[in-house]
């Protein structure tokens, strides 16, 4: 039996520059940056004091009234995923228990899947600190005092706020998605791996539709510390946040942390057509790969992205010459940008430097598990509008970076866009989108 075709019919994006697909596209085209001095916590003790925050964000307005209390047990990563899912279902015009409790769902719950990539969620330090500091003897933490009473100062559901699978679990509960559910935790590759895997569910006919992508919110002291220790953050532009994150640009000097995520609705093309849905693009190829050097943090690989791209093109039955644009991960960490450029060139040859390319990291900061879904949503919008969005803060290419990025939007005849991403640790993924013509 032939595989089913996979349509992308809904885009839910939660980013520092905009929430929702239309606003997001507008922000991308305008070349806005979401970076500013970190306000979520006092970051003045860090070499990098800037990030791309979600300002005044809460998931409360994205859940049914009956679910609002549950927002209290959601880490910020979970809130991002919950909001992105709501935006995605509504953007797709799909009715779920979450979008309308009183209407019949468009897709039978058991035929609705959920695949939300997530990161390592850090507990809120003030919340844990308030409990930990009740178990201090002679100025030091006292495990015996913690076990016998201190721990009781934590809310009973404390653990559930920080489990990475809770992004998907809350989404499945809110929207009554009873089909396959997965949580891929593979760093920055998580979002594209989740979308690729959920695309397979649709292809095989296991589900009629799935919500897939990823979300993460690392802009907290632990998350910031970890990236700082890895030497990945830009420390040279605290006074000019908007210009700090410069993917592939000659002045790139590290990334900044953004908060956000992107979830897309993947749907059986026939089903989408029959209900008259907007089809942004088709998902026609997916590939993953890894690089065994990934455990060495000094190696700065692109996680075998060249193989992932080849695998994805092979899956789509395409040649490099068929590719009309590239959506690059673009962390703006110099060695990573160089490794990524090399990967695209190795995989696509001349096509890599002839096709227009773009990265959204200059606008949103690094979104980690949220990156792939957001980038793929941007690519779907690019396909829909037949415009390649600009790369914020790109003006001239860095040494070894020969992708064709631009600081202005470009109109182009777009038929196939390849979206790539890779993780610290050495894993990568790529997806291929095809223009849908009815």
């Amino acid at each position: 039996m032939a595989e089913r075709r996979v349509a992308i019919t809904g885009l839910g994006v939660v980013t520092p520059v905009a929430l929702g697909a239309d606003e997001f596209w507008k922000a991308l085209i305008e070349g806005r940056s979401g970076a500013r001095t970190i306000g979520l916590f006092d970051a003045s003790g860090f070499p990098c004091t800037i990030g791309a925050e979600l300002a005044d964000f809460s998931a409360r307005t994205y859940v049914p009234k009956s679910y609002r209390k549950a927002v209290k047990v959601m880490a910020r990563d979970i809130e991002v995923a919950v909001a992105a899912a709501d935006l995605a279902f509504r953007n797709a015009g799909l009715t779920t228990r979450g979008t309308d409790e009183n209407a019949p769902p468009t897709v039978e719950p058991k035929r609705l899947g959920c695949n939300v990539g997530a990161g390592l969620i850090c507990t809120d330090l003030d919340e844990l600190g308030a409990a930990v500091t009740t178990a201090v003897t002679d100025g030091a933490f006292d495990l015996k005092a913690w076990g016998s009473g201190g721990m009781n100062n934590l809310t009973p559901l404390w653990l559930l706020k920080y489990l990475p699978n809770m992004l998907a679990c809350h989404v499945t509960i809110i929207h009554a998605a009873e089909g396959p559910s997965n949580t891929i935790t593979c760093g920055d590759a998580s979002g594209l791996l989740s979308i690729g895997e959920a695309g397979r569910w649709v292809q095989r006919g296991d589900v009629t539709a799935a919500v897939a992508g990823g979300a993460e919110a690392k802009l907290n002291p632990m998350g910031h510390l970890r990236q700082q220790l890895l030497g990945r953050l830009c420390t040279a532009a605290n006074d000019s946040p908007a210009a700090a994150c410069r993917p592939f640009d000659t002045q790139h000097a590290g990334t900044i942390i953004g908060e956000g995520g992107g979830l897309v609705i993947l749907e059986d093309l026939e089903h989408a057509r029959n209900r008259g849905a907007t089809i942004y693009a088709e998902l026609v190829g997916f590939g993953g790969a890894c690089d065994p050097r990934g455990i060495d943090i000094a190696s700065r690989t692109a996680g075998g992205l060249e193989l992932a791209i080849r695998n994805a093109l092979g899956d789509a039955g395409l040649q490099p010459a068929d590719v009309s644009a590239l959506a690059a991960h673009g962390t703006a960490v110099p060695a990573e940008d160089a490794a990524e450029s090399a990967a695209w060139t190795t995989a696509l040859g001349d096509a890599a430097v002839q096709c227009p390319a773009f990265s959204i990291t200059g606008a949103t900061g690094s979104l980690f598990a949220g990156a792939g879904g957001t980038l793929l949503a941007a690519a779907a919008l690019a396909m829909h509008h037949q415009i390649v969005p600009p790369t914020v803060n790109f003006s001239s290419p860095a040494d070894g970076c020969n992708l064709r990025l631009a600081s202005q939007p470009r109109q182009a005849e777009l038929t196939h866009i390849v979206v790539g991403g890779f993780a610290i640790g050495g894993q990568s993924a790529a997806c291929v989108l095809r223009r849908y013509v009815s």
Partner: protein
Amino acid sequence: MSKRRVVITGMGTVNPLGHDVESTWRAMLACANGVSKTELFDASTYPTTFSAQVKGYRLADHVPQADLHQTAGRHCQFALGAAVQAWAQSGLDSFVNLDHTRVGVYLGSGEGSLDFSNFVSLLVDAWKDGKVDTRRWAELAFQRMNVHRELEQESNMVVAHLAAQFKIRGPAFNVLTACAASTQAIGEAALQIRRGDADVMITGGAHSMIHPFGVTGFNRLTALSQRNDSPETASRPFDLTRDGFVLGEGASILILEDYDTAQARGAKILAEIVGYGSSADAFRITDQDPEGDGAATSMRSALADAKLTVDDIDYISAHGTGTKQNDQVETRAVKAVFGQRAAKVPVSSVKSMVGHLIAAAGATELITCVLAIRDQVIPPTTNYAHPDADCDLDYVPNKPREAKVRVCMSNSFGFGGQNNTVIIREAGE
């Protein structure tokens, strides 16, 4: 194109009962128990003072290139040991024509443990006026925290270490669907091979949550047994007096291969993966759906995928955690799916002996299914003494049972309602 078949050609494990497959299996058939007083940290005042710990394990005893993994965390070291065993059993270590771009990894590995003493000392030392002074915290953190300890907490790092060990370049995933993670990983890994995205997949899981905040989290949820006066009888799945699960740790790894590729290189085939199902309860983050509808959906999907009926299933390896709710719901779900056959099919939980390995649980249990087929014996549910009217299946109580076992179903249900089922069948044409 007909689907490619997926077979198991290697297995390895490091767990509280043993540091390899055979010693673990012998221990299970002897009804041994891996639970004892927690020694990894001072849990003496915790509501739960015991756990199922891996004891006396040294990476260098199991992994030839141990120096490649100096930064590996505890669960990652378990995974490396288990993977080296599995890889050797598969014969791929000496297969010269292996295309490393066709070998992938799909793990259900947990997060690494916190750099605990530094982490808490920072909280204490930077606490000011009822909150963390993050400026002070950062200043101290840069003095005390180590980049490797932090990076190794990312749950994709076990994948990274296995890729380095075996020079893998194929598709690589990690999932963390709580207690269902490694069953899900195995199911999805099988699909990678079936579709032709890889020829070989290294799969399974690794986890250790036996650390001060891990136990805190589960104790606050009141999920753990608190039978502190009798640790070795504390894990009692399906027994009326069960009072929670026993936290364990470890890793189990399986090598999956395309049937034709495995045949062509003359590999010994241990079993075939024939079915996989996944579902979500979509009920509540704190409770399972009391009707067990999500769990039942997972089992039904796996049966449909395998094109088998309930009459074909000779043994069910239960999730069987020993919590009041899980065992009751699981029993209900098995009855809903199996109908009349539910009373006849043996259902056991090896968690009664090895504890609950969280993300690594499902892979460990699937290995026991392979061995049940090999030796035609079903591992027991130990510590079973008091029948529960709500749990009235055949749990293979207290001693292993010889039986005809050709097809096994293994279930895993995660906190938050992610359910997964894998079905395996004896090797054959």
